């Protein structure tokens, strides 16, 4: 029994964790009232996707995808593609976060607060 | 024989061009130039249309295809006999109405004349487009153009009343137009063609009866709204707030006739008599028409406003056309088509008279018009003549058409419809002749006190002469034409021959059993 759970966790557990992270991120983005917290939750969500891709690229007994002398063969290295993709994704999420923080400063400047309820309370819909 | 010629398209385009010119030059040029554009476009258009009559009479058709407007359907014009009739009427009357409009608008110092003349030109363009359209899609394009172009005319005065009637007009026409659209799409999806064909392209039994009825009524709804068939007539009386030339256009030339023409196209050129009678739609349509004829006549009797009375008369008269078509006999179809002509000339005379009276004396209620004939003899005489024509007295245009419809109904073994038509003629007499009587009666006979109270007594009774020539000449022309057409239906453009030709083509020469 424990073996089964162990293999399961070893093989699929990481996916479970990425899904949990993603769900929590989205939940936080929806339920948090503070814009700063929303940004943090957004980052959690983005990180979960990155984990997901990296988990896909793992290989048993594979090493870093940097050539080492005398070590040849596709099995020896882990998949470089997800890493390359995720570098891009990280940079993109960095850019998004930067813009989000700038927006937040602007919002703070206009409204004096970054609590959603105080900003979008009365008079917003008009 | 089919003649490839750009003339049908030019006839459509010329007034569209005029509208563009008027809109762009608009306020920058003098009114004379603007109206010169209108008039010259009208004359060119009429010349183009009339020049095609002889060839059509000899059995050929002009055809012009621009390009594919949607996948599989061409943006094409074809001048068959039925379309020719409507085009002749519309383009001929545009000249008359233009002259009249100039007189009316100037006499009344109307605002926004640029928009008015432009919209008018677009309306006429769409009317010709409707008559020459070779297929349903082309037809629908011009039909909706007409709807939109008429809206600014209906709401011309821009006050709350005009806005309300504009909204009402749009509600009726847009809804029916969209349903018409759905039906066109469905017909194209089922039959793979949209080209008008005399006798229809829909085979009886090709779809189940329920679906065919549904398609038929979705399509006919588009026409029936514009033709004012009850219970879809609501917009027509409220559109009365518009200036009188607009009413004349609405009720005589373009809009309602386009509706009647739409009914004709749908019944005779899309479904065809056999499919229509197979699914029983003709009877339903006929009964709607009969109800409309009778009810509208009764309502008309109770209206004191001259234009309102004429409006309800229009509703009734148009249902003659619908009834004539739905009887499905060759005679009645020919009669219905000729009624498009006859009613156009008669009703435009009546409306122009009403407008002339309004501009000259500022009277709009019948009860205040006692003794008007003394001041405006010519106008009142023409009004009387046209009233008799509407009632269907022999030697006037209305008689020819009604006689044919009745003959068709009798031949088809539907004496009830014939009886209704006769009764309706009597009703028409009973609501129009009293007006004439008031005109020619004494001033104090009806509502002299109101006349004084309303402050127009001096105008009416003082006698400052008849309407201005710009209004009077068109009235006399149309009255004369309706007289001539009554005596010699084939005079001039051979419109009666065209109607008979078209009816023959639709029914294949014999009566449908």
């Amino acid at each position, binding site marked *: 029994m424990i073996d089964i759970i162990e293999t399961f966790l070893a093989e699929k557990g990481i996916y479970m964790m990425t899904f*949990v992270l993603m769900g929590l991120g989205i939940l936080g983005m929806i339920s948090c009232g503070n814009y700063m917290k929303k940004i943090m939750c957004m980052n959690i969500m983005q990180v979960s996707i990155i984990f997901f891709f990296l988990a896909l690229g793992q*290989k*048993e007994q594979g090493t870093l995808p940097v050539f080492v002398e005398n070590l040849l063969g596709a099995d020896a290295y882990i998949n470089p593609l997800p890493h390359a993709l995720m570098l891009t994704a990280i940079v993109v999420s960095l850019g998004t976060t930067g813009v989000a923080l*700038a927006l937040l400063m602007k919002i703070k400047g206009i409204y004096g607060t970054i609590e959603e309820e105080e900003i979008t309370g009365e008079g917003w819909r008009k | 024989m089919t003649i490839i010629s750009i003339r049908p398209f030019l006839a459509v385009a010329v007034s569209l061009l005029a509208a563009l010119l008027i809109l762009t030059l608009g306020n920058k040029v003098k009114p004379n130039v603007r109206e010169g554009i209108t008039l010259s476009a009208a004359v060119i258009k009429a010349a183009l249309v009339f020049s095609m009559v002889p060839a059509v009479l000899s059995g050929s058709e002009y055809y012009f295809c621009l390009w594919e407007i949607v996948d599989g359907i061409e943006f094409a014009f074809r001048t068959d006999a039925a379309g020719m009739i409507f085009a002749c009427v519309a383009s001929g009357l545009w000249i008359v109405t233009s002259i009249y409009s100039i007189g009316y608008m100037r006499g009344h110092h109307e605002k926004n004349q640029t928009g008015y003349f432009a919209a008018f030109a677009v309306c006429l363009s769409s009317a010709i487009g409707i008559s020459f359209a070779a297929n349903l899609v082309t037809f629908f394009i011009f039909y909706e153009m007409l709807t939109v172009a008429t809206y600014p005319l209906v709401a011309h005065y821009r006050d709350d009343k005009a806005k309300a009637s504009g909204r009402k007009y749009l509600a009726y026409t847009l809804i029916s137009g969209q349903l018409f659209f759905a039906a066109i799409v469905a017909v194209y999806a089922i039959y793979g063609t949209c080209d008008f064909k005399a006798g229809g392209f829909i085979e009886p039994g090709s779809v189940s009866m329920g679906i065919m009825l549904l398609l038929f009524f979705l399509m006919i709804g588009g026409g029936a709204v514009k033709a004012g068939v009850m219970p879809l007539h609501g917009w027509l009386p409220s559109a009365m707030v518009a200036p009188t030339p607009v009413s004349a256009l609405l009720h005589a030339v373009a809009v309602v006739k386009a509706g009647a023409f739409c009914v004709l196209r749908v019944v005779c050129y899309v479904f065809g008599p056999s499919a229509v009678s197979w699914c029983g739609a003709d009877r339903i349509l006929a009964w709607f028409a009969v109800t409309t004829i009778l009810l509208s006549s009764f309502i008309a009797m109770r209206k004191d406003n001259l234009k309102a009375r004429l409006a309800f008369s229009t509703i009734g008269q148009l249902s003659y056309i619908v009834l004539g078509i739905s009887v499905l006999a060759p005679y009645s179809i020919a009669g219905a088509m000729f009624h498009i002509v006859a009613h156009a000339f008669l009703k435009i005379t009546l409306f122009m008279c009403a407008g002339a009276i309004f501009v000259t004396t500022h009277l709009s209620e019948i009860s205040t018009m006692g003794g008007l004939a003394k001041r405006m003899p010519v106008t009142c005489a023409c009004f009387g003549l046209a009233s008799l024509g509407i009632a269907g007295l022999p030697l006037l245009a209305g008689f020819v058409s009604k006689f044919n419809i009745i003959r068709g109904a009798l031949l088809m073994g539907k004496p009830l419809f014939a009886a209704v038509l006769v009764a309706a003629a009597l009703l028409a007499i009973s609501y129009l002749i009293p007006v004439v009587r008031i005109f020619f009666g004494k001033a104090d006979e009806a509502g002299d006190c109101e006349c004084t109270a309303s402050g127009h007594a001096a105008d009416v009774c003082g006698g400052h002469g008849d309407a201005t020539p710009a209004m009077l000449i068109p009235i006399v022309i149309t009255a004369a034409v309706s007289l001539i057409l009554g005596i010699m239906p084939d005079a001039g453009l051979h419109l009666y021959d065209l109607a008979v030709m078209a009816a023959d083509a639709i029914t294949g020469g014999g009566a449908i059993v």
Partner: protein
Amino acid sequence: MEKKKIIGAAVIILAAVAAVIWAPDILPAVGDAESPVNSYLSTYYIENSLEDTGAHNMVTAVLADYRGFDTLFETCVMFLAGITALMVLSSTAKVDKSQREIQEPYKASFSGTVLDTAFRVVVPIIVIYAFYVFAHGETSLGGGFQAGALLAIAYMIDRIIPNFNNSLGNMTEEAAAMTAGVGVFIYILTGLLPMFNGGNFLQYEKLPFGAEHAAELHSTGIIMIEIGVVVCVMATIINILEVVLERTEFDD
């Protein structure tokens, strides 16, 4: 509110667990060398990238060469983020510099001798390390993004730690944005050069330089775009830093 959040989180965790348990075969097992992910493109890259591109680091090979076009736009994202932050905050007034003098009671905590000395030692090391990382991008771990970030950190330390108005260098936010743009342009130029030599966009082996092996040209190309990336990333981070710094009041 808090209770709702906890319930929501619990639901999500349970749903994720349930989904993975209920449909275990949806995704390949972690570390499975036979899965489509690890056998198709992966094998090609591992086996051919050294020969194709001359880069020892396969991730760099994929990032800068096979998918160099992605990376161009990744750099653009950086540039765009900087310029957007600048535009968003440009209408907010900057804090007056004369008021930036740190008041007496706080002075000790902001500019102590230890901090001042430490930064003088650390900054050169960081800069050297940045060049090392940049140069090593191809052969082992490293690359333009990291190097750019390190350079920006050096600038940042220089900008923040000593007294505000006497840091070594001071780029304005606009100058930083322009520099970032020039960095991207270097990248684009590297891509455009092969087109004058009959190649496609970013086809490094058609770079108009004399070289014996295609792999050398690939290395040159990768180095060139890395320079662009370094410039862009550094300038963008400086850009965002300046934008924020100029508008932040330190009294709260």
